């Protein structure tokens, strides 16, 4: 065969593969949007499940997920940002930083179910928080920590060194430089990390199975020591243990759509902010 023809065939098949991957995404998204869109209405989003979860809405699950997102971010965001500031701005280039980097990437690779086990052993049983929003938030917070650290590090790395040296030249201390020069500039990018973490946390199921998630709990949580429903666990319950499939399936589609919508909106928002920021940095 002519080598030009071989090339044509090879390239064509790569194009097809690229199209296949896009097709898979649209297949999944399209399938859930198509089946779920009819279920979503104001009532669905603001009422509790009724009739053994064969009717009603998903309001308690939405509230539960919001609580978990807020709780885990309160834990992960400050810790992660501070950790990244340490490795990027303070720690230099020695073995300590290399060690911390390795540990962070190792933490990122630990499966989420292991976090669930750990959260159950430490927060639920050892510290006696019980199945609670507090235990779930702590578990999820540790889970997204590597993501927050990595995005913050990237954001700090993107700030040109001339800004720092300029600040030092004006007599500012290291702390002042970080607070007044580096952080304000890096903030939008750090913020995209926060947004991506929110998307990640709201979809995680395995870590909350044994630390917070309630099978069915129509009343809303009133303190951080309460159990709560959560969207991903609710979807799992609806999909696997529904006794009346005909009636629970539409609700499951609706729940999946809400879950996907949260993740998509978070990703789009992050991409949008990043794009605007890049334009701004270029104009500097």
């Amino acid at each position, binding site marked *: 065969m002519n080598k*030009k023809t071989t090339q044509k065939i090879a390239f064509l098949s790569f194009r097809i593969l690229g199209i296949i991957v896009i097709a898979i995404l649209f297949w999944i998204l399209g399938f859930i949007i198509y089946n779920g869109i009819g279920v979503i209405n104001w009532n669905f989003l603001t009422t509790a499940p009724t009739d053994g979860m064969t009717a009603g809405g998903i309001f308690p699950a939405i509230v539960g997920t919001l609580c978990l997102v807020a709780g885990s971010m309160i834990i992960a965001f400050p810790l992660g940002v501070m950790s990244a500031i340490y490795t990027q701005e303070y720690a230099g280039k020695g073995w300590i930083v290399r060690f911390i980097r390795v540990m962070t990437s190792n933490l990122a*690779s630990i499966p989420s179910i292991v976090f669930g086990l750990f959260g159950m052993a430490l927060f639920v049983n050892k510290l006696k928080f019980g199945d609670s929003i507090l235990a779930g938030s702590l578990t999820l917070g540790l889970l997204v920590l590597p993501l927050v650290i990595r995005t913050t590090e990237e954001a700090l790395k993107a700030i040109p060194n001339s800004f720092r040296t300029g600040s030092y030249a004006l007599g500012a201390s290291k702390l002042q430089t970080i607070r007044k020069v580096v952080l304000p500039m890096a903030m939008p990018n750090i913020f995209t990390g926060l947004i991506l973490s929110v998307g990640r946390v709201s979809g995680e*199921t395995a870590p909350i199975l044994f630390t917070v998630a309630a099978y069915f709990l129509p009343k809303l949580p009133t303190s951080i020591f309460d159990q709560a429903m959560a969207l991903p666990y609710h979807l799992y319950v609806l999909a696997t243990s529904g006794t009346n499939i005909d009636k629970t399936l539409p609700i499951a589609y609706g729940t999946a759509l809400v879950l996907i919508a949260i993740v998509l909106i978070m990703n789009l928002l992050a991409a949008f902010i990043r794009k605007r920021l890049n334009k701004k940095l270029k104009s500097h």
Partner: protein
Amino acid sequence: MKKIRRFIGRFVEGMLTISGMVTTVTILLIVIFLFKEGAGIFKSPVIEDGYHLYVNAENPVKSISSYDIKQIFDVEIDNWKELNGINEEIMVFRFDDIFNLYAEEEFGENYKLLPQKLAEVIQNNKNIVAYLPKQYAPKNMVGVKEIETKNISFFDFFGGKEWMPTSKPAAQFGVLPLILGTILVSLVAILIALPLGLGVAIYLSELANEKIRHYLKFTIELLAGIPSVVYGFFGLVVLVPIVQRVFHLDVGETAFTGSLLLAIMALPTIITVSEDAMKNTPKALREGSLALGATKWQTIYRVVIPSSISGISAAVVLGIGRAIGETMAVLMVTGNAAIMPPTLFQPVRTIPATIAAELGEAPAGGTHYQALFLLGCILFLITMVISITAELISKKPQNSGL
């Protein structure tokens, strides 16, 4: 004033240093708690806590392994000969059976005479094996012998072929079927995902123009962002029926369905990591190849791929890691049968799915609970090894060729 400011500076630096250690501390805590709970299983007896096995004093058998106990009570082993004992059929006796032999009054006040009656039964039956609570056990009575209760051994756990955590009297914690199930599902997933992912990576790094590249990368990011429970739901309502119909199976929840779903889920990892590696191929290598008259395609598969092979291997390893640890999606589509997987088209159960499915029912601190934590330890170690391997592979100095 200056002093205070310096003090604040020091203080903040200290705080930052401490939070820099937070990931390390987390990993340490995970290790401590997982292994502390998990190791407890080797201190647990093979039969249910609070119970003992008793035989007739003339019976030469001294101890019975966990697996044999289960076989006896399942009537798979029915002769003492099989346990190097006398040639006689085994008579299985459970605590409740005593109430069929004697009337309620005969046990006396507060069941005082119960141990004695139990001893009588054991004395009269040479071929008996009795499974009794310690509370009423005929301890130190003539003609009765207690079977030595061993602890669950390393071999019981890692060499056992049956996972039956609620079987009585001897729960079986053989982890082999779970390990094999996990490996089978993950490897097949990578075999499916690798050609697809590699093709897309080549397209992205070598062929696509900037605009297409941008949108395709964003698509892949979204694919990575979809929660695993949504993948599981999609697999359950779409892939399971398809697999069932295409392969004419009784149930569509098979190892293959899990692999298919995991392949989709591992794609983003494989594509992004290997595309990064290909993009990093030195320009001089490409141009040198083109200058020698090679076509673009020849350059790709003779120069670009070999020079980025370490990155591609890292992508494969990371993809396997992602697949091995995945819980919800696999739990929902593989059918959850804890058996040695005979073929790809039968239900299996993976390690993470087992933990997720059973931890809710296992009483905290019990043997089952500890066994699930030990599974967590195995998972933790596997993913650690994988993550370190990937790091080492991708750190290997790239052959610059210059």
